[in-house]
């Protein structure tokens, strides 16, 4: 415990670790929050395209200003990402090329242009350019407080916009057509939301790089989605997941050499997604599997109960015992023996030895109740005798009128 405490103390005392952790947390928080809208609007890959598209903007901003101030480069990235998003929209609206193809083209072509410009700048021999390529793959360890402040500033502006346009974005994410009929400027709001995704991308580029930035947009939001159906909770949870992934990724990568921060953060975020997919209440896969098993068990019990009951009735005695084979023949495909054992332990069926099985009086009653229930729902009657259901003697017209 002592060493863990020392380690946690490092966050407050070690400059690099503190800066990197803070930067990764801000990145996770902003991208989780803004990414929620991208995931809900089926634009998860837009983040991927925008992060690649930002590269030429970074280089051009440097060429034009000669400065590597984080805010300058971020503005360049923002402009290029935004142009890319606009191009995607234009081509999708005007041609028959599917959206994902356009995303792929913008992604790779912008990146190619960025690479050409980057190598061109590098070969111009200006000493000042070194460090531009951190934008390619991210170098969290190279973050300084100035970068973190810039990230916080740009990210904070994005969050402020979400707060201002919360109602509009909510409507746009779930029912854009309705938003349009209400007279919201849907086109403008679309552009604004896309801009916000670009903002999230720009905030994270320097830390995790263009390739992994897309994961930071998608993963926290996809994880958060599993836990809730409410937008406000999802957005907050996504921000939390993002910050958590950022923090744990940064801390784990500081444990040992050769554990780069960006990939660690992404793995942490993906782990959160895995946990959410498996264990979230309601939508979790494990819960769904357990529910399915329970349903199957219930159906098997009903089937065996009713088969035994039906066989027994032909003898005029509801508890009359039958061979296991006869029950099997009545309901093929059901694991009869296991179900009978379960029914016996509940006191609904009884083994008479030699594979002879019959219902107990309690079992007969249960079977009758079940059959009655099915009849009331019309499940087994409807297909063969459709007219019998509405006029069934069990429904007293007086009851209905009352």
């Amino acid at each position: 415990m002592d060493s863990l405490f020392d380690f946690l103390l490092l966050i407050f005392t070690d400059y690099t670790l503190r800066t990197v952790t803070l930067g990764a947390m801000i990145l996770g928080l902003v991208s989780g929050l803004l990414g929620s809208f991208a995931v809900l609007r089926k634009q998860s890959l837009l983040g991927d395209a925008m992060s690649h598209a930002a590269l030429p903007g970074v280089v051009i901003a440097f060429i034009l200003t000669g400065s590597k101030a984080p805010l300058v480069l971020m503005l360049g990235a923002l402009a290029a990402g935004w142009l890319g998003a606009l191009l995607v929209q234009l081509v999708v609206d005007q041609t028959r090329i599917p959206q994902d193809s356009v995303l792929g083209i913008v992604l790779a072509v912008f990146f190619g242009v960025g690479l050409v410009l980057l190598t061109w700048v590098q070969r111009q021999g200006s000493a000042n350019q070194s460090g531009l390529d951190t934008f390619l793959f991210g170098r969290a360890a190279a973050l300084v407080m100035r970068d973190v402040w810039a990230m916080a500033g740009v990210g904070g502006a994005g969050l402020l916009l979400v707060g201002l346009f919360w109602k509009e974005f909510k409507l746009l994410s779930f029912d854009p057509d309705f938003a349009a009929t209400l007279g919201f400027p849907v086109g403008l709001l679309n552009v604004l939301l896309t801009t916000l995704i670009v903002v999230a991308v720009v905030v994270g580029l320097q830390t995790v790089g263009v390739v992994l930035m897309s994961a930071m947009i998608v993963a926290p939001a996809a994880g958060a989605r599993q836990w809730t159906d409410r937008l406000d909770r999802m957005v907050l949870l996504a921000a939390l997941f993002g910050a958590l992934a950022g923090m744990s990724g940064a801390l784990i990568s500081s444990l040992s050499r050769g554990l780069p921060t960006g990939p660690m953060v992404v793995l942490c975020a993906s782990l959160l997604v895995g946990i959410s997919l498996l264990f979230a209440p309601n939508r979790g896969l494990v819960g769904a599997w357990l529910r399915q098993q329970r349903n199957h068990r219930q159906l098997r019990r009903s089937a065996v109960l009713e088969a035994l009951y039906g066989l027994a009735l032909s003898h005029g005695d509801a508890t009359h015992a039958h061979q296991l084979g006869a029950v099997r023949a009545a309901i093929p495909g059901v694991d009869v023996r296991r179900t009978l054992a379960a029914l016996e332990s509940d006191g609904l069926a009884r083994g008479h030895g030699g594979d002879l099985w019959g219902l107990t009086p309690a079992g007969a009653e249960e079977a009758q109740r079940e059959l009655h229930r099915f009849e009331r729902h019309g499940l087994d009657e409807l297909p063969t005798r459709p007219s019998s259901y509405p006029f069934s003697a069990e429904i007293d017209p007086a009851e209905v009128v009352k």
Partner: protein
Amino acid sequence: MSPQLEIQLVASIVAAACALPGVFLILRRMAMMSDAISHSILLGIAVGFFLVGHTGHPLLIALAAASGILTVSLVEMLINTRRVREDAAIGLVFPVLFSIGVILISRFAGDVHLDVDAVLLGELAFAPFNRMTVLGLHLPQGVWVMGSILFVNLLFIALFYKELKLATFDPALAAALGFSPVLLHYGLMSVVSITAVGAFDHVGSILVVALMIAPPASAYLLTHSLPRMLGLSLLFGVAAAIGGYWLARFLDANIAGAMASMTGVFFLLTLLLAPEQGLLARSRQRRRRRRRFAVEMLLVHLSRHENEPEAGTENSLAHLVEELKWQPNFAQAAVYNAQAEAFVQRQNGLLLLTEQGRQTAQRVLAR
């Protein structure tokens, strides 16, 4: 052969090999899958590298192709849980595999000849240094490797052309006829993976996407026929390769980046200029339709009032502006166009239908 020519040859073969499967990726709306595959092959390359120690080994290609297939199946598994949608599934899977690859490389391969930059960016300029002699021909290794991959791609498309076409345009019918769409899907994905693996040391895994998607997308704007689309894609790809090489030489910049930029230039040009679907052609069509409609509207209006007493006031240019709510310029242009087609004559300020104009108005009304 001079190194210059050899680089262009390798670049052209890479571009051609990428463009072929790209056509089907676009038509099947799976373009972003190529992005996912080309990133996650890094994992296979890293694992293979640790097993055999260098990058030229066939095992690397096999493992990298396997990680491409792994990506596809993981994405499909995620979609089938119905907890995330397709786009999010793709965006979740490949960063994980890529991250594991990066961590493996940076943790265990600190000072060997494998780094992430090389995989992501590639370097075509080195192509002539790595040579291989086959059948007495001493050529860059890239020519042989990518040449074989191009051959495999051609073979795949030639052998399964009919099935691919059917499964692409009518998957339900293909399934009903007994072609396995799943098998074809994985076949295509294997081809994409192998191509991405072969291409990465030349153009890098990100720009592979440009070579796979942009040339077929440009071709898609020019034609409706699949064979022509395949041919045009090859043409665009090779042109981008050669154009890119010279652009890079001119700027002294990364060749692969310049090739990707050229695919973008070609795409923008077709987007603007394509005869039917280009932006210019479409805006011209829109303008022509609007003009046509205005002329027809004018003729109908004139014919309605032709034999009425108010014809004198109704059929003046000024009245059109008032009743049809047209801008004066627009009304003038419509009248001018109608006169040019000899549908209308002007006589002391009044617009009179010609016989031809009257017939056209009748036809429009009967439509």
